[in-house]
């Protein structure tokens, strides 16, 4: 840190020195041959000791120099080096347009091309959205809020900051979607490391793969995968932010890196979030505490929903060495505490003290090296995750905040039928190896192997009858993948075939460590993706995968209370098809990106909890559904000043069970209820004052949908989730070339009643102010 400050001071002094010297300015833009801006291109002045800068997202750069003659060298991977000589007079501004030509030699290398890495990903055959967070870093938001604007994605939250959520991709939801951070699966990381509290500042980009997942993301992702990419710059930087807002919300994030001249680096990612989440609930029912009778509806503030989460993750590594392109060790420590106001699906049961606590410690390492045509990546992770559910309160609350002490004989918890302090301790381990080999010019072979291990143990200090996981349960997953890619010249086409082999085993031990129950499963998934680009601006894509999701531990092993183990559970299966197109073009003052994707999912053997009839229930493979839909996104930028984007999704999720327990299913071929089927969002904004000030308006709409089967019930009193209209406003002011950023946000501008779930109300209008300091 000390070093940093010195550098900062040095930079400042340098700045003043230059200012005093009556300097001249060079501004410019770096473009490729097709006039696409090239961001992150290096722009250096050879005469000034190679001092220089890097072009920004729009390809622009600014340099301040004393008068004289200079050679400007501009470089970018995959493009030819450009040298431009200029003469700079006193106190003049010189405008430059630097066009980088394609480097034919490098173009033939199938790995690196003129397109940016993200654009390359977008142009593969996968249905993928790559979201660059650059423009969003000043906004008070977390990853979830950003992901939910992607077409085909629907996010249903239970409440405010830190609340539980369900993310759906093309109709597949929850654990059917797998999450990764820098390519490492986030499985079993616990509640502390989820997308609902991860500030956007810490993230460089987000990749959302729908339905068809490349083998490099090794997991049993039935419906798709989300890969969070943290920043990976090879220079010093400091990105620190603090935001304050409604409901006593405070959020801090620090992301910094120090690189020494031998290419060793130290990086730190950290955040702290706190919120009271005490937003007002409108018209909630109040029940008498003694007898439970309905008294009336009231408007009240939530009073037991405080949320704290924090993470510190230092990383030590090297890059660009003979033995490694990058190699790092990372330690991640995270903690959260979450008070619950009510169960996620029921506002009738009010909780006044129930809370959960999570602690996670992860040690990980990742290695990357390219040797000629072979590119190797390997990572490993060890972790300890502790989750505590505290249901020890002896009180009973209602929505007014009033409570009574329970009769001592009555051992009820707030949530459970007996008070409990349940602690789950997980030991997790995972490793992943990926190798890519370029065979000749246009062939690429990729192999991936991922291993995931979980040992879960539970104990309850308060309820002796709760024996859930008292004897440890062990699950391990092995997923091997092999892919072959054939590329046409100039990216004319890109064809990939892949196969995935799943090996799964689970066992439960008894107290003495003997294996008791053993489950094994193996299966083979496969798929293909094809993209055709007749011109660079346009690609047409198709992809297919036969995907699986292996049962989770709680589905297989039950909860030791009322859910019995079911060792006959089969994995969920889905045939996923995408057909899409992408257009990315620009004229001098106008940029347009357009995506459209048609999707079809035919899913069988969904694992659901069989309803209790009799005493106990268990998870079973019971539902088959199909999901067909279309999603589209369009983004336009005018003169780099005005920006508009619009994303829309329509999906038809259909019940495909002909029979329900042998009886003809009346809901066969009708829409599966309680899932949004039509939604769109838009974001429109403009930049003012030399792009220092920007103003954005967001709007999202979700069509009303029924809680239960559409055709059933008297239309006069059908339960539904009403149509949602949510507006937001972001104002962002940056100065000193983006070093200081002040932004204000208003969410739910119209203070509308917002529900993602039946009767579960989300926060009303809220204000946030964020200050961000960014130095690099």
């Amino acid at each position, binding site marked *: 840190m000390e070093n940093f400050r010195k550098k900062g001071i040095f930079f400042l002094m340098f700045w003043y020195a230059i200012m005093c010297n009556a300097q001249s300015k060079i501004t410019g833009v770096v473009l490729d041959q097709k006039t696409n801006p090239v961001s992150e291109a290096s722009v250096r002045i050879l005469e000034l000791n190679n001092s220089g800068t890097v072009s920004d997202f729009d390809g622009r750069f600014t340099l301040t120099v004393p008068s004289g003659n200079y050679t400007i060298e501009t470089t970018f991977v995959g493009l030819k080096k450009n040298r431009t000589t200029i003469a700079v007079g006193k106190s003049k501004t010189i405008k430059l347009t630097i066009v980088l030509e394609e480097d034919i030699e490098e173009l033939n290398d199938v790995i690196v091309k003129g397109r940016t890495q993200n654009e390359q990903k977008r142009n593969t055959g996968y249905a993928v959205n790559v979201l660059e967070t650059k423009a969003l870093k000043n906004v008070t938001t977390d990853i979830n809020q950003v992901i939910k604007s992607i077409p085909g994605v629907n996010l249903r939250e239970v409440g405010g900051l830190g609340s539980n959520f369900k993310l759906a991709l093309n109709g597949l939801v929850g654990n059917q979607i797998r999450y990764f951070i820098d390519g490492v699966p986030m499985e079993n990381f616990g509640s502390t490391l989820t997308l609902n509290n991860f500030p956007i500042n810490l993230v460089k980009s987000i990749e959302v793969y729908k339905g068809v997942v490349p083998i490099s993301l090794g997991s049993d992702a039935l419906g798709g995968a989300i890969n969070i990419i943290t920043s990976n710059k090879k220079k010093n930087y400091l990105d620190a932010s603090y935001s304050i807002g409604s409901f006593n919300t405070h959020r801090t994030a620090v992301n910094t890196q120090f690189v020494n001249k031998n290419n060793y680096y130290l990086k730190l990612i950290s955040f702290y979030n706190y919120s009271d989440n005490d937003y007002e609930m409108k018209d909630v*029912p109040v029940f008498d505490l*003694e007898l*439970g009778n309905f008294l009336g509806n009231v408007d009240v503030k939530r009073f037991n929903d405080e949320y704290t989460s924090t993470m510190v993750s230092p990383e030590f590594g090297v890059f660009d060495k003979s033995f490694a392109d990058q190699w790092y060790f990372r330690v991640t420590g995270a903690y959260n505490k979450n008070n619950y106001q009510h169960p996620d699906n029921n506002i*009738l049961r009010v909780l006044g003290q129930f809370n959960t606590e999570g602690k996670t410690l992860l040690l990980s390492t990742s290695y990357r090296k390219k040797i000629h045509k072979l590119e190797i990546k390997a990572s490993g992770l060890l972790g300890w995750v502790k989750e505590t559910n505290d249901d020890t309160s002896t009180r009973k609350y209602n929505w007014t905040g009033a409570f009574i002490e329970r009769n001592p004989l009555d051992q009820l918890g707030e949530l459970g*039928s007996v008070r409990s302090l349940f602690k789950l301790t997980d030991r997790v381990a995972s490793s992943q190896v990926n190798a890519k080999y370029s065979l000749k010019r246009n062939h690429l072979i990729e192999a991936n192997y991922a291993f995931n291990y979980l040992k879960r143990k539970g104990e309850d200090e308060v309820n002796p*009858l709760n024996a*859930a996981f008292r004897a440890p349960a062990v699950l391990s997953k092995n997923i091997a993948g092999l892919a072959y890619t054939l590329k046409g010249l100039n990216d004319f086409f890109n064809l990939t075939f892949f196969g995935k082999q799943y090996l799964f085993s689970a066992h439960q031990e008894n107290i003495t460590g003997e294996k008791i129950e053993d489950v094994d499963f193996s299966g083979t998934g496969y798929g293909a993706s094809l993209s055709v680009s007749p011109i660079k601006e346009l690609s047409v894509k198709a992809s297919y995968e036969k995907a699986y999701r292996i049962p989770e531990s709680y589905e297989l092993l039950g909860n030791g209370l009322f859910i019995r183990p079911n060792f006959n559970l089969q994995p969920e299966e889905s045939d996923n098809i995408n057909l899409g197109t992408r257009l990315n073009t620009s004229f001098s003052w106008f940029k347009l990106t357009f995506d459209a994707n048609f999707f079809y999912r035919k899913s069988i053997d969904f694992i659901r909890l069989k309803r209790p009839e009799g005493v106990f229930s268990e998870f079973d493979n019971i539902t088959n559904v199909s999901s067909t839909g279309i999603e589209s996104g369009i983004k336009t930028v005018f003169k780099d000043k005005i920006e508009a984007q619009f994303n829309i999704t329509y999906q038809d999720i259909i019940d495909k069970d002909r029979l329900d327990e042998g*009886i003809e299913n*009346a809901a066969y071929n009708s829409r599966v209820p309680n899932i949004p089927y039509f939604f769109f969002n838009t974001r429109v904004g403009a930049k003012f004052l030399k792009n220092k000030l920007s103003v954005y308006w967001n709007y999202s709409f979700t069509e009303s949908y029924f809680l239960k089967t559409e055709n059933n019930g008297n239309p006069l009193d059908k339960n539904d989730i009403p149509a949602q209209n949510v507006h937001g406003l972001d104002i962002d002011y940056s100065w000193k070339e983006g070093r200081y950023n002040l932004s204000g946000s208003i969410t739910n501008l119209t203070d509308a009643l917002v529900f993602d779930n039946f009767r579960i109300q989300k926060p009303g209008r809220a204000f946030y102010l964020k200050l961000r300091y960014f130095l690099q």
Partner: protein
Amino acid sequence: MKHLQINILILAAMLLGLVACSSDDDAPVPVSNPDPDPDPEVVEPEVTGQSSNGFVMALRTTGDNETDYIVSKEDIMTGEISAAGTGIELTSWRFFYPVGKTLFTTGYSEDNQGAAYADNGKGLIAKKGGFIFENALEMFGAGDDKTLLAMEIARNLPTRRLHIIDAETGLVKQISDINIFVEPAKDPRETKISWPTALQVRGDKLFIPFQKIKNEFDDKGAAVDLGTTDPDEAYIAVFSYPNIGTDPEKIISDNRTSNIGVNGATTGLIEADNGDLYSFSCGAVMAGFSQASTKPSGILRIKNNETEFDDSYFFNVEEATNGGKLFSLDYAGGNKAIARILTNDTGNKWEAFGRTVFNQKLVIIDLEAKTVTDVANIPLHAKRYTSPILIENGKAYVSIETATDAYVYQVDIATATGTKGAKIVGKTIKGFFRLK
């Protein structure tokens, strides 16, 4: 939905009243919200738009997480009974129990609410009152024509919470924590507790037959099931009523047959016209017994004005049906009962509640004459949860579910014959009721 503004004073008064009530118990320490809402509202009783004429039925639909609907239809002997475009939509799987002309429905603990439904005087069904509970209410009985008895049965605690609910208002009048039976063990996991199988009020007594149960654990120490512990004896706890103490006045037992009743059924004990009580004992593993009882399935009697089993009466139904075991018993008038018989016990625990074995038949039992007559024209079927059977004018109405379909049947009690009625578009009709 209409909202009726009421004065804050009313709510404040209610809260105060609550404070006053709870101060009787010493323990409660109510605090009020530091920031109470100045503008409370109360929801008017809901008129549902559903006709209260004809048969009111609890229909369980297919698909869609098994939602229940309250539907109504005058003619249930022809056509179809379906929830398409009709019916009061409930939020989940529900229990249904009638008290006089009022129908109560309550959910499980993740849908911890109940309410009463009755005719609004204009031919429509109106929702009355509303209450919440903590553990699911799983056993029901009628105190009288205006009173529902409903009980929370914790699976791991001996205390049973008896709710006394007013059918006129749909509100809870009283909750009593009562002990039916507990036999503590050194290891708390071995403690024996009760599973009640009826709440039968007669005169100034409340009879609660029960099974003795405990949690069962696998060799990993996880609770995997509830198990009957003493299957070879019948037990009834006798409480005074309406002043129910915390403990029974006595527990009576009889070793001629097994534990009375089965899980889920509310008719372990029924009352005949003359005030005699009859209980049924099953003892089959497929009906939830951990071990089959060595005693025959049969019927015991408690004579009117008595609180002991009648030594002179036992109807060995197992013998009379060549090895069948009683699975339900409903009083049908004239000292007759309509009953379900498991024609054999497959030996797989709980299987009688599933849809894998269709081995149940309907019979008419003459309780006095101790005879059993099979009901003609009704196929072998399976049955899960059902409300008490509706019987009017000598006819019973039942939903009969076979492997592939479900139909309404009308049963003539006198002749023991069934007549096939409307097709059920759904899994079952849990109960037939009259609200007018």
